[in-house]
């Protein structure tokens, strides 16, 4: 086993015990709340966070909230049901489509998409935002394109204008923000806290919506690389179907993996390069350990640094002058 593969390993049992103790203390003693609400998407992060909450607080003090909308994968709700049943918690399903529709989310989204693809037809076309392909294979800055998938045609991709990009992001971020609103409604009426499900990759690389999925009272897996979340998932006996599912954004109408939307490198490689960087290893040392070239590793290291630097605003809490 390579040095980095070994260093990525955590003692899952000890980590679960440590996190459970911390969550219990924070929620019951510091926050004075009686339990916790978690948004469940059918993905591995929310599944692990739910399992940890049950471990820490007991199944009767945890509520899972599924919040599908028009563009959600049908699998998301099915898997949310499975995970809730598996861990014995109450599942509340709150379809957020009517609220988003009333706020004009879908109309705003369509208007911004039409700036790039004027003949966009929301009734049949599907879209997603994508970054250039695998950073290990080719260099390239993070430039977003809009991909249009029309039945019976090849996928079309166009670079977005700044206005169209910001319009699409602002409209689609309404989805995460309405979910935050719903989570706090269900938490407050029970005197519960809200548990966020961001992992280290999402938090530090800026793959979250400020005051959307980033809005929570505590984030128990925020210090863990995605690869380590998988280790906890296996220990906590999260269903295999969820562990094996490719992480998606579940935000746009076309299915989009987190790798193509944002991270640009498979998690199992990205995480080891990042760990090596944090441990002070050079690109050359990481490359030798992983069987890559130093150039490939340096490219990924530069991207990690750049994303962290340019998303600092997302992690900043409201500022005040003293």
């Amino acid at each position, binding site marked *: 086993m390579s040095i980095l593969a070994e260093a990525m390993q955590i003692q899952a049992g000890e980590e679960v015990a440590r996190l459970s103790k911390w969550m219990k203390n924070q929620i019951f003693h510091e926050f004075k709340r009686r339990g916790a609400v978690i948004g469940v998407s059918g993905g591995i992060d929310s599944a692990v966070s739910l399992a940890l909450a049950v471990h820490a607080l007991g199944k009767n003090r945890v509520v899972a909230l599924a919040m599908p909308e028009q563009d959600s994968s049908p699998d998301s709700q099915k898997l949310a049901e499975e995970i809730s049943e598996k861990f014995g918690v109450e599942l509340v399903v709150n379809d957020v489509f009517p609220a988003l529709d009333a706020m004009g989310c879908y109309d705003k989204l369509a208007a911004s998409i039409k700036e790039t693809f004027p003949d966009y037809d929301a009734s049949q076309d599907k879209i997603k935002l994508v970054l250039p392909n695998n950073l290990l294979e080719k260099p390239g800055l993070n430039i977003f394109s809009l991909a249009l998938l029309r039945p019976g045609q090849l996928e079309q991709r166009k670079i*977005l204008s700044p206005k169209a990009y910001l319009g699409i992001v602002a409209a689609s971020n309404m989805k995460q923000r309405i979910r935050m609103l719903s989570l706090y409604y269900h938490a407050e009426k029970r005197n519960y806290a809200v548990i966020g499900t961001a992992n280290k990759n999402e938090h530090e690389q800026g793959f979250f919506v400020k005051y959307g999925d980033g809005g929570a009272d505590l984030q128990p897996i925020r210090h863990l690389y995605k690869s380590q979340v998988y280790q906890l998932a296996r220990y906590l006996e999260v269903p295999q179907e969820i562990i094996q599912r490719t992480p998606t954004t579940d935000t746009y109408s076309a299915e989009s993996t987190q790798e193509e939307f944002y991270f640009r490198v498979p998690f199992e490689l990205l995480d080891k390069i990042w760990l090596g960087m944090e441990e002070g290893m050079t690109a050359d040392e990481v490359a030798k350990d992983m069987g890559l070239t130093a150039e490939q590793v340096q490219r990924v290291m530069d991207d990690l640094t750049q994303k962290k630097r340019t998303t600092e605003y997302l992690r900043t809490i409201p500022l005040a002058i003293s």
Partner: protein
Amino acid sequence: MSKVENKIRQFLIENFVLSDQVDEMGFDESLLEKGVIDSTGVLELVFFLEEQFGIEVDTSEVLPENFDSINRLAAYVRQKQ
């Protein structure tokens, strides 16, 4: 310095740089290290280059060697024109 470099510098100053940092905006300075080129910034730059210089930018050309400084951007524009 030629017109291309100056136009690019002026655009960057007007859109990304605070007035008290204008003097620090060197022609070879890394825009990536300065934090100018985030996901929105790179789109704004591409849009500006296409509009201003009548070129078409392909995703595969949005590379640090073409976009990381005023001089690199200007060289890229000339090569495309």
